[in-house]
C-alpha cells in the first residue's frame, strides 16, 4: 500500500525490527496443531499499546452471553500455559521487549492472533511516531481479527476460525471499472438544488444514517408521484408508524413547499 507520509530519513538512521522467523520443525508442528486442535485451548493476552477497548471486548467474550469457555477457551495468567497468544494494540516501541518475552515464554507450537485494528495494521495509531504498526512486524501471525474493537461475536468467529470450526469468508478482491460505466445520478428527475436541500435538512434533523434513509424514501415518493407528488408524500407520512419519522417527513414536506414557492417566484421574476 502506498505510504502517505514519506519522511525521507536515510535508512541507516531508521531502526528496523528483526522479524522472527519460524523453524521448519515448528511450522510442521504448528500445521499439525491447527489440524487437530479442536477444544481446550488456553489464551494469554498481551496489550502492546492499544486503548484498552480490545481488552474489554475480550473479557465480554468470556461472559455468559457469549461464553467462549464452552469451546474450552480459557484465559490464563501466564504465557507458559498458553496455546494462543493474543496481541492487542499497535505494538509500541516500549512494548517490543515484553511482547518478545511473552512469545518466548509460551511453549511451541503456539498460535499468534493479531487482535483489533491496531494489532492488524496499526489501526488508528498507524502513523504515530512510536508504533511499529501491527503484530506481524515482529512475529508470524496466524489469525487477524479486525475491528475496533472486535465485538464478542467477531472474536468468537476469529477463535472458531483458528480452531477450524468455521471457514474464512473475506477474500481479497480486485475489480476494475468497465468501459463506459457511469455512476447513477440519484433521483435524476429532481432538480439538484431541491435534492441537496432536502438531504441537508433530513441530515440536520436526524443524522446522516436515518436522515439519508428518510430523504431517500421522501424523494422516491416525490419522483414516483409525478403531478400528485404531494399526495404520495402525504401517504408516506400517514403510513409511518414512528412519530419521530412522521415529524421529520412533515418537516421535509414543509421545506419542499417553501423551496418550490421560492423557485416559482424566481421564475416569475425572470
Amino acid at each position, binding site marked *: *500500500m*502506498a505510504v*502517505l507520509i514519506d519522511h525521507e530519513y536515510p535508512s541507516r538512521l531508521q531502526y528496523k525490527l528483526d522479524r522472527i522467523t519460524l523453524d521448519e520443525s515448528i511450522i510442521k508442528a504448528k500445521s499439525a496443531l491447527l489440524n487437530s486442535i479442536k477444544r481446550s485451548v488456553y489464551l494469554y493476552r498481551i496489550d502492546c499499546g492499544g486503548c484498552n477497548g480490545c481488552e474489554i471486548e475480550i473479557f465480554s467474550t468470556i461472559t*455468559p*452471553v*457469549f*461464553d467462549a469457555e*464452552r469451546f474450552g477457551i480459557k484465559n490464563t495468567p501466564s504465557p507458559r500455559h498458553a496455546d494462543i497468544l493474543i496481541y492487542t494494540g499497535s505494538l509500541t516501541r516500549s512494548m517490543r521487549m515484553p511482547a518478545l518475552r511473552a512469545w518466548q515464554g509460551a511453549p511451541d507450537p503456539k498460535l499468534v492472533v493479531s487482535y483489533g*485494528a491496531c494489532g*492488524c*495494521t*496499526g*489501526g*488508528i495509531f*498507524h*502513523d504515530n511516531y512510536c508504533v511499529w504498526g501491527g503484530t*506481524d512486524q515482529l512475529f508470524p*501471525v*496466524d*489469525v*487477524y*481479527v*479486525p*475491528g*475496533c474493537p472486535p*465485538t464478542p*461475536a*467477531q472474536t*468468537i*468467529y*476469529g477463535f*472458531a*476460525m483458528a480452531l477450524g*470450526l*468455521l471457514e*474464512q*469468508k*473475506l*477474500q*481479497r*478482491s*480486485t*475489480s*476494475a*471499472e468497465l468501459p463506459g*460505466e*457511469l*455512476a*447513477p*445520478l*440519484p433521483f*435524476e428527475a429532481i*432538480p*439538484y438544488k431541491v435534492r441537496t436541500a432536502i438531504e441537508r435538512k433530513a441530515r440536520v434533523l436526524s443524522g*446522516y*444514517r*436515518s436522515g*439519508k434513509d428518510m430523504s*431517500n424514501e421522501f424523494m422516491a415518493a416525490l419522483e414516483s408521484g409525478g403531478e400528485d407528488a404531494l399526495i404520495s408524500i402525504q401517504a408516506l407520512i400517514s403510513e409511518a408508524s414512528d412519530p419521530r419519522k412522521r415529524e421529520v417527513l412533515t418537516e421535509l414536506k414543509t421545506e419542499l413547499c417553501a423551496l418550490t414557492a421560492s423557485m416559482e417566484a424566481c421564475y416569475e421574476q425572470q
Partner: protein
Amino acid sequence: MFKTIKEVLRTGNATVKYPFAPLERPQDVRGKPEHNHVKCMVCSACAVACPPNAIQTPLDMREGTKTWSINYGRCVFCGRCEEVCPSKAIRLGTEFELAVMTKEDMEELCVYHLQACTQCGSHFAPAKQVAYVARILAQGKDTNTAAQKLEYAKVCPKCKQKYDVQRLMEQSKEEGEWLC
C-alpha cells in the same frame, strides 16, 4: 438449593447459539463498510474523511488510473465514509465475520480510469466523476446543451484558464482597451 434450581429454570439460557447458528443483529449495527463500485465515482471524499486512512485512493498519472482501496484491517467502523459519500456508494452493513488467515485478504481494490483532457491530453480527474458533474450541470437551464457541457467538462483546468485568458484578450482588443 431448590430455590437456586428454580431460579435457574426461570431465567433460562442466556448464551447465544453463535457460531452454531447465525447471530441476530440489528439493522443499523456498525459492520463492514460495503462499497458499491458501480455507484462510486472515485471522488476521494471518503479517503479524506477516513480517520485511520483505511480507504486510500492512490493516483497513477502515467497509467492514467486511480485506485480505490480499503483495508478492513485498519477500518475502525466509524461510518465517516458513509456520511460524506455524495453518490451513496458506501454504507456500513451488518457483516462482521471479517477474521482472516492472511493479511492480503483484508484488502479490496477497484481500479478506475482518469479523464484525458481533450485539448492537451493530460489526465486530470476520474472519468466517472467528470461525467457525473457534467450530468448535474446539464440539469440547469441555460443556452448550452448537455452534450456541449460534457465536452467542456472534459477540458483540464489549465486549458480552461488558457482559453479564458485568450477570450478576455480578444474581447478587450475588440473593445479597444487593454487590461492591465
